[in-house]
């Protein structure tokens, strides 16, 4: 049996707005294996945010099934999904969502606060490890407002890694960054992919699909395209080819 991290079958999600029913997702089915770097693309209104919410266990489908790491999510309650998110998913958001006036270390520690199995000592060690893994070993005690956007997003990625999730779910993770920093973050994602992490990257930017191993395109709540990328571009090379920063 193949090792599927995500298995989605005939996923439907309907919203009721007044008297009308909006079909955000219509019969979406796909599977993601361990170690894949998948971009989910679509314009606004394509249903990609709805899909992201369902994949992130923040929302449940109207019908169809979603298995995350073999666990059936659709029938789970609010609290169980919270625990599932805590153990199996690492979120990276467009606007970082770091706590203000809080150090990098404290931000990264946050998910482990909600895991009673992790002691205070282990929490700190794992957080420092995660910060080292994203190249912020020298920024551990910096507060979130003392860091650049790229550094803040690295802290957010460290926070997503610290609970050792089965999948990293990124929502427009480069959307707020300039070109150079975007490629730095993409390089980081590619490195994590190379280390065997499963990454799902939701974006509206078609350029990013060149750097992933697979691309799923959504339109009007349906999958219109699902292709494997055999020719992955290296973000590192792009970064090196960019003109050096003036300062």
């Amino acid at each position: 049996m193949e090792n599927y991290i995500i298995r989605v079958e005939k996923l439907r999600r309907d919203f009721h707005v007044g008297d009308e029913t909006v079909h955000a997702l219509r019969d979406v089915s796909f599977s993601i294996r361990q170690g894949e770097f998948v971009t989910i693309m679509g314009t606004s209104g394509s249903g990609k945010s709805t899909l992201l919410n369902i994949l992130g266990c923040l929302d449940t489908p109207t019908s169809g099934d979603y298995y995350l790491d073999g666990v059936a999510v659709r029938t789970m309650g609010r609290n169980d999904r919270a625990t599932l998110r805590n153990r199996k998913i690492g979120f990276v958001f467009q606007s970082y969502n770091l706590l203000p006036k809080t150090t990098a270390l404290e931000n990264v520690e946050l998910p482990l606060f909600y895991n009673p199995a992790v002691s205070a000592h282990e929490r700190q060690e794992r957080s420092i490890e995660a910060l080292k893994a994203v190249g912020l070993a020298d920024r551990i005690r910096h507060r979130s407002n003392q860091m650049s956007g790229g550094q803040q997003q690295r802290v957010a990625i460290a926070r997503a890694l610290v609970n050792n999730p089965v999948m990293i779910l990124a929502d427009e993770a480069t959307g707020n960054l300039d070109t150079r920093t975007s490629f730095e973050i993409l390089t980081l994602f590619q490195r994590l992919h190379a280390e065997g992490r499963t990454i799902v990257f939701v974006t509206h930017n078609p350029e990013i699909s060149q750097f992933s191993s697979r691309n799923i395109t959504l339109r009007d709540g349906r999958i219109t395209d699902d292709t494997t990328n055999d020719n992955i571009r290296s973000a590192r090379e792009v970064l090196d080819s960019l003109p050096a920063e003036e300062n």
Partner: protein
Amino acid sequence: MNYNNLIKIALKALSNNKFRGFLTMLGIIIGVASVIAMLAIGQGSKRSIREQISEMGSNMIMIHPGADRFGGVRQSASDMQTLKLEDYNTILHEASYISACSPMVNASGQVVNGANNAPTTLNGVAPAYLDIRKYEVGQGEMFTEADVKKAAKVCVVGQTVVDNLFTNGEDPLGKTIRFGKIPMRIIGVLTPKGYNSMGQDQDDLILAPYTTVQKRVLAITYLHGIFLSAISEEFSDRAIDDLTGILRQTHRIKAGDDDNFSIRSQEELSSMLSSTTNLMTVLLACIAGISLLVGGIGIMNIMYVSVTERTREIGLRMAIGAKGRHILFQFLIEAVIISVTGGLIGVLLGIGAAAVIKYAIGWSVYVQLYSVILSFAVCTLTGIFFGWYPARKASELDPIEAIRYE
């Protein structure tokens, strides 16, 4: 979920907003401090009244002639002559629960010594009166039962009378003063007691044998009153019942008819005064309690703003695995920390304020443990009560919307 972790999270959030937390706390601090200070003032005045009453003799019972009403017409008590010397003698022999008993006849008038004169009251009493009213003879001595039998022209004077009549500082003992036309020799001076709680000078009086006052000064055979001491304060009520029975019998009052005398105890007076101060204490505590309530609403207000302001934080926490109840407890703990810390500071401030009132203004103030525990418990409950609703609101946020909240 580890509650230590939640407390750490809440403390962290509070330390991010120290000034705001302090302002919120201020409402609770002022509320608790004022509750404690107000109750201390109320309790203090109650105690000082009790003390003054017990100085006058807390087990004292007074019998006056005449009921308050007589056939629907209110009478002046001193006009009535229902209380006789026989009543006194009967009580002396028959009454139980009584440790001392003295008749009382009094006359007001000028007292004269040479060129000095002053208005005062002449009280005709038995030697037991000293015990009943807790007077003491400082210099000289009290007149005796023998003086009473002889209707001797001797007297014991209060310090105010001495000050008024002996302006040169002479020794009053052995001197003869005149009350009206009656000369009396001073054989003793009372130890000063000062003013009582009603503002009366307790040293402006002359004590003489009641026989002297009855026969020589007033020429009457009845009494203006009888003063008694119950064995102790607790026996006052029983002594009054007993005295009522005796007097109704000697006065031949039929069942169903009104008494032609009235008996009051100091106990009644003290409970009357206490009820006044109790009412005052309740009013003060109410006002202070309202300020505590306002402080609580302050907490609710700030927690509400805080929840709205931190919607994204709440959304993020939920996304990375916080359950609704984690968020609920986090905000509840914040509210309780604010109110408990405020409460502690308030308790200290209240006790401090009470001490300042005591030493700077000189009011009698007494901080009771129960008022401290009560106000502390109330402010903790206030924190939980007013923190609950905003915390509940936070815990019910939808993480999808919260995390994208602008």
